C-alpha cells in the first residue's frame, strides 16, 4: 500500500514541477501514450524557449534600465552588504547577521508558547459543559479581539503600555519579553482557530464510538479527537509559523531589540543605501524557505497517505 501511495505523490510532483509543459491534469491533450510523448517533447522545447526569453527580458530590464547602476549601487552593493552582515561599530553599523539570532530566539520561544496556549483556547471553545460557559465566552472574545487587532498595535500596546503602569514584576520586563508576549497573544488567536478547524474535521462518529466504549467526554477529546485533529492541521500550523518568523521583526519597534530588520534599517539610514535590507531579506529567506519546503513535504505525505487508504484512485 505505501508503495502505491508514494507513486501517486511522485506523479503529482512530476506534473507540477518537473515538466512545466505537460498538459494539466484533466485536460484533453495527452490522452493516449503516443500523443502524450510527442506533446510532451514539443511542449518542453517551447517552454524552454519561453523561459529563456522571459528571464532574459527580466535581466535586460535590470541591466539596461537608465537607473540600473543606481539600483545596483543602492540595493546590491557587495561591499556594503558584507558590512551590513558583519556590522562595523567604528562606522556605527550594526550586524544584520547577529540581529537574526534574536529573531530566531524570539521565534522559537514564541512558537512553543503559542502551540500550548492556542490548544488551551481551542479546547475551551470546544467544551460543552454549561458550568464552563464563561470560559467559552472568554475564548471566543479573545480570538475575535486578537485576530482583529493588527500585531504592531498589540506590540506597541504591551511594550509601551506595561512599563507606564509601574506595576512590580510586570513593568520592569525587557522589551524582548514584551515582544514575545505580544507575539504569543496575537498568534495564539490564529492558531487556536486552526486547531478548532482540525477538531471540527474529526467526524462526529469518532466521538460517538469513543463514548460508546465508555470514554468520558474529556478522555474521548484527549485520546480520540485531538490526536487526529493535530495531525490534520500540522501543514496550516507550519504556514502560520513561517509568518511568525517574519513578524518577529516587528518587535524592534519597542527599541531595545535590535533584530535583523532593525539592524538593516539603521545601516540603511547611516549609509543611505538599501543593501542592508537585501541582506536581511536573504537571511529571512534562508529561515523561511526550508520550513516552507518541509511543509510541502508534510502535505505531500499526508495526501499520499489518504489516497493510499481510499482504495482505487482513478
Amino acid at each position: 500500500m505505501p508503495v502505491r501511495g508514494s507513486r501517486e505523490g511522485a506523479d503529482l510532483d512530476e506534473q507540477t514541477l518537473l515538466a512545466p509543459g505537460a498538459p494539466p491534469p484533466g485536460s484533453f491533450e495527452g490522452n493516449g501514450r503516443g500523443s502524450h510523448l510527442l506533446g510532451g517533447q514539443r511542449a518542453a522545447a517551447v517552454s524552454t524557449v519561453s523561459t529563456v526569453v522571459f528571464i532574459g527580458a527580466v535581466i535586460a530590464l535590470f541591466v539596461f534600465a537608465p537607473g540600473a547602476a543606481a539600483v545596483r549601487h543602492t540595493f546590491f552593493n557587495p561591499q556594503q552588504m558584507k558590512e551590513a552582515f558583519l556590522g562595523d561599530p567604528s562606522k556605527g553599523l550594526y550586524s544584520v547577521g547577529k540581529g537574526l539570532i534574536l529573531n530566531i530566539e524570539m521565534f522559537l520561544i514564541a512558537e512553543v508558547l503559542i502551540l500550548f496556549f492556542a490548544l488551551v483556547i481551542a479546547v475551551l471553545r470546544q467544551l460543552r459543559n454549561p458550568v464552563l460557559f464563561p470560559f467559552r465566552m472568554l475564548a471566543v472574545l479573545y480570538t475575535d479581539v486578537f485576530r482583529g487587532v493588527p500585531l504592531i498595535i498589540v506590540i506597541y500596546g504591551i511594550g509601551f503600555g506595561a512599563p507606564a503602569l509601574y506595576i512590580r514584576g510586570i513593568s520592569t520586563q525587557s522589551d524582548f519579553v514584551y515582544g514575545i508576549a505580544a507575539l504569543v497573544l496575537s498568534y495564539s488567536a490564529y492558531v487556536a482557530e486552526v486547531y478548532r478547524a482540525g477538531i471540527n474535521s474529526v467526524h462526529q462518529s469518532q466521538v460517538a464510538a469513543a463514548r460508546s466504549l465508555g470514554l468520558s467526554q474529556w478522555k474521548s477529546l484527549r485520546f480520540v479527537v485531538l490526536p487526529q485533529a493535530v495531525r490534520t492541521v500540522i501543514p496550516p500550523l507550519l504556514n502560520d509559523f513561517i509568518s511568525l518568523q517574519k513578524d518577529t521583526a516587528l518587535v524592534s519597534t519597542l527599541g531595545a531589540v535590535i533584530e535583523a530588520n532593525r539592524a538593516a534599517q539603521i545601516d540603511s539610514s547611516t549609509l543611505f543605501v538599501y543593501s542592508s535590507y537585501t541582506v536581511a531579506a536573504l537571511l529571512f529567506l534562508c529561515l523561511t524557505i526550508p520550513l516552507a519546503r518541509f511543509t510541502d513535504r508534510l502535505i505531500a505525505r499526508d495526501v499520499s497517505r489518504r489516497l493510499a487508504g481510499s482504495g482505487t484512485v482513478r
Partner: protein
Amino acid sequence: MRKTIILAVFAVIGLGLTVLGSTPAPASTTKATVAALATKASSCSYKAIQPDLFKVGVLTVATDSPAYEPWFDNNTPSNGKGYESAVAYAVAKQLGFSKSQVKWTVEPFDASFAPGPKRFDFDINEISYTRDRATVVAFSVSYYDVQQALIALKSSRIVKHHTPADLRTYVYGDQIGSTSLAFINTELRPIHQPSVFNTLNDAKSALQDGRIQALVADTPTAQYISSSEIPNSVMVGQFPSTGEHYGLLFAKNDPLVACVNKAIDTLRANGTLAKFQKEYLGIYTSVPTIKP
C-alpha cells in the same frame, strides 16, 4: 494550447523590447541636463534655473511629518516659522521665488535617499552631512552647525555624574536614522546596547517611563524637549562639536546645488542665518559642555 504558449512568448519579447526601446529617452534628457549644467554654473537667475526644477515656476521643498520644533512650528512648514522653514523661504527668496511659489511636500526620511527621480527640489529635515551619504545624494553647504546634547530626567544619576567613565554606564535611546545614535555608539561607547526607536516621540516616552536613562539629540531639539515637552527632564549639557552640520538634501548631480549653495553663503554673510538662529534657537545659548 501550443499557439497560446507561442503567443505568450512573443508577448514577453514584445514587452521586453518596448521597455528597452523606451529607455534611451530619459538617458538623453539626463545628458542634456548635464550639458546645460556646464554652461549655466555661472548664472543662478530665476529664469536660468527653471529647467532644473521639479516643477517649473515652483520651488518644491520637502520635509518629514511630523516636522519637529524648533525646526518647524506646529507641524506646519508653510507658516514660515521655525528655523528650517525660515531658512527654506530665505533661500527661495534668494533664488527669486515669492512666498506663494514655495510648495511643501512630505518626504519620509527613509525615502529621501531612495534611488530614482526625486519628487522635490530639496529636502530640509535636520539631515546631517556624512561622506558615505554624499556618495548617494548631494548636500548643500551647512545651514546649521550641529552639536549633540544629553537629555535625562531631573531625578537621574546622570545629571550629576557624567564623566567619560560614568557616561559609558547608562542606558541610552534614540530615534532611528539619527546621527545622534552614531554619536552614542562611536563617542560615548556605552556598555549596554542603546535602544533604537521608530520616532523621536517613541524615544521620549521611553525616557519618561524610565525604559532608557538618557537621550541624545542635537542641542536645539534637546533644549526644546527639556524645556517644553517632558516636564521633569533636563538638558544635562552638550558635547563638543565633531564638525557635524546639517545640509539640504538634493538628488545626486542636481545642478541646482551650486545655486542654492550661493544663496546659503549669501544668507550667512549678510547675517540672516545668525538672525534666524537667534530668533528660533535663541534660548539655546550658553549651554554647559560635557566631554564624551
